[in-house]
């Protein structure tokens, strides 16, 4: 089976006033039909890696890789037309804050319908039916009412469900989720993740879950990649996170406060400059 994603030696850099800044420095991994988590702090390059897979970087970014393929198809050489066919239809992207990701001047239903009709030639009525079915699938109680609401009229949790509906309606093979629940309350987060979990499993999709929350990723995903300063420093199965070997991962795990433990001081992560080059 061809892996969904193959990345080899991905490098992304940006020109700045002080020379070139290497944001991603030689990232390699493969993804099958599984849930992969990419964890890192701000500046680790995790979001850029996610967007690079859809070739959605700003024109200023300089991307290079030995291999970047989706389902066997080379993304580096793909024409803009090929990429448009892939984006949305075969790879989808869910972002952090629906406030900023949903178009404020279109109703929710229009946007979801548009997402569908971009990739399938169907009548408006059919698109509407599909939209309502999708809203039902993300457990929205009254799809007909919500269909005509504007994004500012829905809560954060519902907005995120709507985003998921919009991104999954074309039935992609891969979903990239960039901090999809970071802006949500903890209980709403659980609900949204459960919906995501169900849909991804039902449809046999691949999922890349990008987050800064190590524990969340460990509990939700099958495999984890830990990124630091543009490189992958750890790769392991989610169930084996406690046995992580890289000092950065261990340091992060040790510095998190835990409800069950009572410690006088939290272990502070000391950054070893060697991690930048190791």
């Amino acid at each position, binding site marked *: 089976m061809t892996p969904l994603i193959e990345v080899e030696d991905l490098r992304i850099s940006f020109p700045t006033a002080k020379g070139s800044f290497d944001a991603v420095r030689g990232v390699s991994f493969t993804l099958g039909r599984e849930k992969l988590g990419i964890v890192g702090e701000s500046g680790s390059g995790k979001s850029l890696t996610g967007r690079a897979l859809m070739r959605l970087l700003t024109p200023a970014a300089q991307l290079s890789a030995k291999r970047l393929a989706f389902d066997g198809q080379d993304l580096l050489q793909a024409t803009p037309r090929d990429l448009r066919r892939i984006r949305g239809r075969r790879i989808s992207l869910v972002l952090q804050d629906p406030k900023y990701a949903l178009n404020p001047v279109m109703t929710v239903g229009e946007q979801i319908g548009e997402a569908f009709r971009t990739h399938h030639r169907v009548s408006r009525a059919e698109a509407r039916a599909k939209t309502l079915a999708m809203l039902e699938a993300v457990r*929205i109680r009254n799809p007909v009412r919500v269909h005509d609401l504007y994004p500012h009229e829905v809560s954060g949790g519902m907005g995120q469900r709507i985003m998921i509906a919009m991104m999954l309606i074309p039935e992609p093979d891969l979903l990239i989720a960039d901090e999809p629940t970071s802006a949500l309350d903890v209980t*709403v987060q659980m*609900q949204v993740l459960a919906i995501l*979990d169900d849909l991804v499993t039902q449809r046999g999709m691949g999922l890349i879950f990008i987050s800064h929350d190590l524990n969340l990723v460990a509990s939700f995903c099958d495999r984890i990649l830990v990124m630091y300063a543009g490189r992958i420093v750890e790769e392991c199965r989610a169930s084996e996170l406690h046995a992580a070997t890289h000092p950065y991962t261990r340091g992060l795990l040790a510095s*998190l406060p835990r409800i069950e433990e009572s410690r006088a001081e939290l272990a502070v992560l000391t950054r070893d400059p060697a991690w930048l080059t190791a």
Partner: protein
Amino acid sequence: MIDIRDLTVTFGRGTQAVAAVRGLSLHVGEGESFGLVGESGSGKSTVLRVLAGLNEKWQGSASLAGLSVARRDRRFPRLVQMVFQDPYGSLHPRHTVDHALSEPLAIHGIEDANERVSRALEQVGLGPAFRFRYPHQLSGGQRQRVAIARALMLEPKVLLLDEPTSALDVSVQAEILNLLRRLRDERGLTYLLVSHNLAVVAHMCDRLAVMNRGVVVEEMAVDTLRRQEPAEAYTRQLLLASRGYDREVARAMITYD
């Protein structure tokens, strides 16, 4: 130290009125660290803002060290200060660190500002190299340290902390939490810490109250939380959700929205 009785805060008017806080009562003793936990919209930040004097329309009674919040006078800034969530928004972009730290002293006519400012920087772990930097030349953790130093310039007895580490990277969070604990131990401060993160509250506080939609659902000692023995269903749900994703637990939580 902090005494709140039957606090009610309503925003908006008439049919648009929303009660952010409804009949809340709290008591925090001197030197205690008290946590206020809740999700967004629970009203926890509103309580802090009332105590800080930023919200002036409320009913009920609130006092700090016996002084009524409704009748704030010049003593208040030297009694209570606040640290905000967003380190990128709580420092004035055009003021150097030195300016930010000396201003409260200038407002209250306190002498030897130079001495106090350098001491304050030292105590939060920033050296003199940072003194004349602008906020955009500081990292998130450094800005939050400056915010903490600034809050302590007037030597208050009470520190109101509004999600002090939520906007920081995970690796920086531990440093800031350790700093806050150390400062509290050294100065005998009283903390009122607001957070949505149960683990942070469990680490920092002695007692806590769980809020939901403007009311206190449950109040307990941190030990109760640690032993997973909260009484109320809402608190239990919060506790479960904090543990990370679990298929069965999450399935049970799915509701139609």
